[in-house]
């Protein structure tokens, strides 16, 4: 095992049986083996077949990423594991709710920037806004960073969801 191997971020999509304990199994695998989770999302995607999709953003050397995938694949309720980062182009999106408190110039500036980022106002009071923003993680990071100087008080993020581009399906 070479320690010089580059560490890369990968987005991995996992199709699992929607059954109790499946998320605990996946999370336990990551914590038990010391893998890194940058974000993890899960929701049912097929209620007839009772399947859920878990999207995991993780990082590691190629050898670790390979381990993560084969370890996931040997869990009994796991149907498919797909490394979107390796298997061609994909889209990933994340949503954030961002609360900014302020008055005067700062409030106006917050609205202007939200407009540039195509963030929507989903709640407002005389002294606050909640913005909804959807995009890739880096865009959300930049938006949130800008808002810090304009009265940011709270953020809630979903973590990434992802799909491959083109006609191919899982």
């Amino acid at each position, binding site marked *: 095992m070479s320690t010089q191997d580059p560490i890369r971020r990968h987005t991995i999509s996992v199709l699992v049986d929607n059954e109790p*304990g499946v998320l605990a199994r996946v999370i*336990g695998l990551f914590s038990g083996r010391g893998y890194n989770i940058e974000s993890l999302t899960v929701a049912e995607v097929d209620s007839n077949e009772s399947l859920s999709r878990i999207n995991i953003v993780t990082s590691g050397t190629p050898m670790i990423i*390979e*381990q993560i995938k*084969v*370890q996931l*694949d040997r869990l*009994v*309720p*796991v149907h498919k594991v797909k490394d979107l980062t390796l298997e061609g182009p994909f889209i990933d999106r994340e949503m954030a709710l961002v609360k900014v408190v302020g008055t005067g110039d700062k409030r106006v500036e917050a609205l202007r920037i939200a407009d540039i980022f195509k963030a929507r106002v989903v709640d407002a009071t005389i002294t606050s806004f909640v913005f909804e923003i959807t995009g890739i993680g880096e865009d959300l990071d930049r938006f949130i960073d800008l808002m810090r100087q304009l009265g940011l008080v709270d953020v809630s993020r979903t973590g990434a969801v992802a799909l491959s581009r083109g006609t191919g399906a899982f």
Partner: protein
Amino acid sequence: MSSGTILSGAEIVIKALRDQGVDTIFGYPGGAVLPIYDALFKQNHIRHILVRHEQAAVHAAEGYARSSGKVGVVLVTSGPGATNAVTGLVDALMDSIPIVCLTGQVPTHLIGNDAFQECDTTGITRPATKHNYLVKDVNNLARTLHEAFYVAKSGRPGPVVIDIPKDVQFADGTYRLPGECLPKSYRPQVKPDLNKVEEAVEMLANAKRPIFYVGGGVINSGPVASQLLTQLVRMTGYPCTTTLMGLGAYPAHDQQWLGMLGMHGTYEANLAMHGCDLMISVGARFDDRVTGKVSEFSPNSKKIHIDIDPSNINKNIRVDLPIVGDAAYVLEDMIRIWKARNKRADQAALKEWWDQIAVWRSKDCLKYEKTDKVIKPQYALERLRAAVAGRDDVFISTEVGQHQMWAAQFLPFNKPNRWLTSGGLGTMGYGLPAAIGAQVANPGALCIDVAGEASIMMNIQEMATTMQYRLPVKVFILNNQWMGMVRQWQELLHGSRYSESYSEALPDFVKLAEAFGGVGLRATKVSEVDDVIREMIETPRPVIVDMCVDQKENCFPMIPGGKAHNEMLLGPEERVSDATPEEGMVLV
């Protein structure tokens, strides 16, 4: 009785076990499994062996499974019954032993209420099992039971827990037959990619200094895999070494076998691994006890890795040609292609390789001081070896420590499934219950637990189990009055400061055997060794032998933690070349 019959949950359990071919289970009752015990009482097909501790139930099931090739079955109660079983489950997980463990649970409506003897069994055993289930609906019970057997024995085998609330055991539900119940998702690959097998055969034929590195996966695959492996090794004429878990996969009496490799493996096996140009790993997982220092592990070889579990490939050591599949299938294909292509090893190169190996062999690395002043543990095992020579029905289990390594080095395993040891977890207390399981699976066979005086105390209560079922298990204690393996490391790495490694206040093992109703024998002099061994073998009852051996002996060869294969210590006179580096000190 067919599919669709209505039965109580407890009856479904018994019926499903029968349909899975189970004739023996190991267990211990309690409130949360009483309905299942009641159903057991009302039938005569499944035999229940009552152990004296739930950990021992799992180890006994492991011994049963490993010695018979079947799935071992365990039944324990909720709470403490389940938690006591955890060590056994992890042991089976590490060593790839197929186990189905049924645990009782508080009734569904009380789950989560901190009810009496409630614990989160599926939560606790999630990382301790290959898979686990909580069955909340009796109509899923049969399917889950059948699926559990499938999961336990397919792919890389392992333990599966089914947690069954008491109300589910009482409730009536529909029975389903095994064939109707396969999981949708878990389908391990057993047949290899033929292109890769062809590539492997080419590499095999072109090698100059090849070695087969064989592990427990060949035993998991079944006796046919051992036969095929033996055939392939003989066809090629190449050397073969086995891991601790692989002992018996290749006949130990064969000249092409170099002995065990790894930390306490032979000089020739380790140096051949270090110097080879092609390594063919079959069902072995490049454990740290085998590789030593990873960065210096077999630096100049191409590596082929045959394994049923892709997660064991490229985990510790990067290999050149991974082949995913069941060992038996892969070996069969390799033999077929080797023959079809009229392959032949490079005889000149091979001769040179064997000449080199002969030089390493001539070190006679397992030699020890012959003396008549004190019983050397190695001598006791050599005499045991002589006493059972030629017998085909000898099953050896061990505890954990020096005695385990000496047993691996000095006892001959010519066939698979005859050697039961805790390799991955290294669980002291494994040996006696494992021998019980082997004896239950092989009535009439000679089942011997090679033990240490410290380890045996961890599950000594199982002597009562041997008595109850008239299992003539032999406990062969190499009593050195020390946790010898711990002391050896303290000598090597901690300035001989023997912190808590002396076995104080030991019982009189002869009297202890008698207190249980068995037979106790003791040897303190070299001249007594043979008589005691003979009497042990001839006594048709449980026996404890207190073999009082040299207290100072250490186990060699040894590759100290963090060292490479070619840095092994051959005897007490050799010291670690340069002080063990810190990175080696932290290794276990």
